[in-house]
């Protein structure tokens, strides 16, 4: 086993360790809140390689809109699906897609991309 092979082995082990830590370790997730203006509230979610923030908190009882700002041009994130609301929207038709969220009840609405690979949620409380 030559020097370069030993170095490769060490680098590979370090890389695997890094992947495990980076993807499976505990990491803080950002939580977004909505801006309330004249009796309505609005929250923005940027779509690029995922949803940021992936969790949005809304106030109960105030009519709410969630805007999806599409910044990703791959097919992966082209749709957003709110399972409980029966919403399946194509985000690529326009830059910003607005979805109305019912806020009459407390609860969590999960959303995901069309293939259910990316997840996020809207929490009403």
């Amino acid at each position, binding site marked *: 086993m030559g020097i370069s092979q030993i170095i490769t082995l060490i680098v590979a082990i370090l890389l*695997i360790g890094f992947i495990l830590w980076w993807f499976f370790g505990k990491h803080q997730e950002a939580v977004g809140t909505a801006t309330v203006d004249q009796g309505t509230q609005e929250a923005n979610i940027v779509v690029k*390689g*995922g949803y940021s923030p992936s969790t949005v908190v809304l106030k109960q009882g105030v009519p709410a809109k969630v805007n999806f700002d599409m910044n990703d041009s*791959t097919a992966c994130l082209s749709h957003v699906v*709110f399972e409980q609301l029966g919403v399946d929207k194509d985000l690529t038709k326009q830059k910003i897609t607005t979805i109305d969220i019912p806020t009459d009840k407390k609860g969590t609405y999960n959303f995901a991309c069309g*293939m259910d690979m990316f997840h996020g949620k809207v929490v009403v409380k």
Partner: protein
Amino acid sequence: MKLSNIKRFWISFILSIPMLIQMFAMPFHWMMPGYNWIAFITTTIIMAISAAPYWSSAWAAFKHHSANMNTLVAVGTAVAYFYSIFAMFTGHEVYFESAAFVTVFVLLGDAMEEQMHNNASNALAKLIDLQAKDAEVERNGEFVKVPLDQVKVGDIIRVKPGEKVPVDGVIVDGSTTIDESMVTGESMPVTKKKGDDVVGSTININGTFNFKATKVGSDTMLSQIVDLVKKAQTSHAPIQNLTDKISNIFVPAVLIIAIITFVIWYVFLNAPLVTALLFAVSVVVIACPCALGLATPTALMVGTARSAKMGVLIKNGEVLEEVSDLDTVVFDKTGTITVGKPQVTDVVGDQNKVLTIAASLEENSEHPLATAVVKKAKEDKIALAQVKKFAAIEGKGVRASYDGQTAFVGSDRLLEDISISQEMKDQAIKLQKEAKTVVYVGLGQEIIGLIAIQDVPKPSSKAAIAELKKRGLKTIMLTGDNPNVANAIGKEVGIDQVIAGVLPTEKAAEIKKLQDEGRKVAFVGDGINDAPALSTADVGIAMGSGTDVAIESGGIVLVQNDLMGVVRALDISKKTFNRIKLNLFWALIYNTIGIPIAAGLFMGLGLTLSPELAGLAMAFSSVSVVTSSLLLNKTKIAGEAA
């Protein structure tokens, strides 16, 4: 610059042609002059316009500690591309074509999948398009055309032949035949007259009529159907939990497998650096979990839309999964197996006296049998008498004071307290064996007569039950009727088992009992008192003429009041679920077989996958899963209206 996937694909494809030529010329030992430079420049352009979006999306995901299929595409193309640049300047062999072709194939897969996804979701849009655009509404005594959204409840609307009924309502004037196939799936036009309900979006064929709007906007039947289908299409099937779990760990796991592949080849098997690298890149490229993610949603989308067109509304993916495990179907009798409009066929005893007493008492009751008795009395022009102290005897019948004596009308449960002559008893049994329900009429302390009422089975019930039995399902009828009557009807429609004498409140308990025996039970019913049974059963199938409550508690709603719908519902659910399983199987097999091949495990057998082929295979797997889902549109379903 905003380019669609399909445009990016074409640009990249054209740019990759020189490399394609070189690839085919290679076996003839022909080398394109200045190939390295041509490949470098074209690949760089392809990377910039086509691969860069994947890179940037992957990088953004990486910062969120998440990885996805873009990560795999990005890693695969970037490794091949940057290694080739390094190789070019250090005088080694270059692999620009790997980076370029993988990008081209991934784009092709994306573009085709997008197209098919649109096809699959189109079905719903077509349903919405069925709506009429405007309506002829009476305003100030004149009929004027107004846009649909201005129609209000209570408006009188005129519909001419060939026009669409704009909203739901009741005919107040005129008669016609209407094609309701778009809502019920029934291809035969239906005759409608004054007092009948009409449904928005159905087509008026030959008569002109006026009707009063009862439901508009999002309350109409079509809107409700669209809403239900939308929810079903975006719903989760429990089987997806598996893919959800896999998708979370899949990509990082693949990256690790790729690194291990590289290390094993390079460090332990002393393969050249570039060979090890190509194996690792192939692993990354073939592993894209696209097909896995598409398997369930696309099948669900096509299946639920198809079934909606046949008048079968499936609430969600969970129902589909339950249907495939069913072994027993339980039917409610009245209104489900039978027409639900009972008629008096025989009267035993003093015809006039018996009917007078019975009808006078039953006039106060809302029981379907009571309606039949009152109707018969009216037909025979029998004058009803005033009764006092009317009271219901729970589960048995009714009682009141008639002409100074206590009169009662009810089922054989009344006989517990009242005497009956042997002759009457024999008569009753004879009638019951003819599938007629016997109502006992008493005065004072004895039974003075019998009324036989028959509710005939629907014409399609027998065929539908035979179809279900052919599918290996056990069929059971559940009814509050007397066992003699129930058995006679059961025999007529060919049902396996009859559970008779069940009080309305006990229906759910009977279902529970069957479930405790280890059976997976579907319950088919319609009335309000069926709601608990509908929700207790593993699959609740609500018949269309049913009340709102029944529809709420059913997992499947049949728009048409016909048992053939049950067969269709079970068929399409099963087919959709099987398609999901097939899709998942292929998607998984693809990865489980593809990864070891790509890693060079079968090199000894001469079986390897270059990164380009891996890219093609990956694109093909997504497209094949979507195609397989679309094929659901073409499968045969029992009893479908041609």
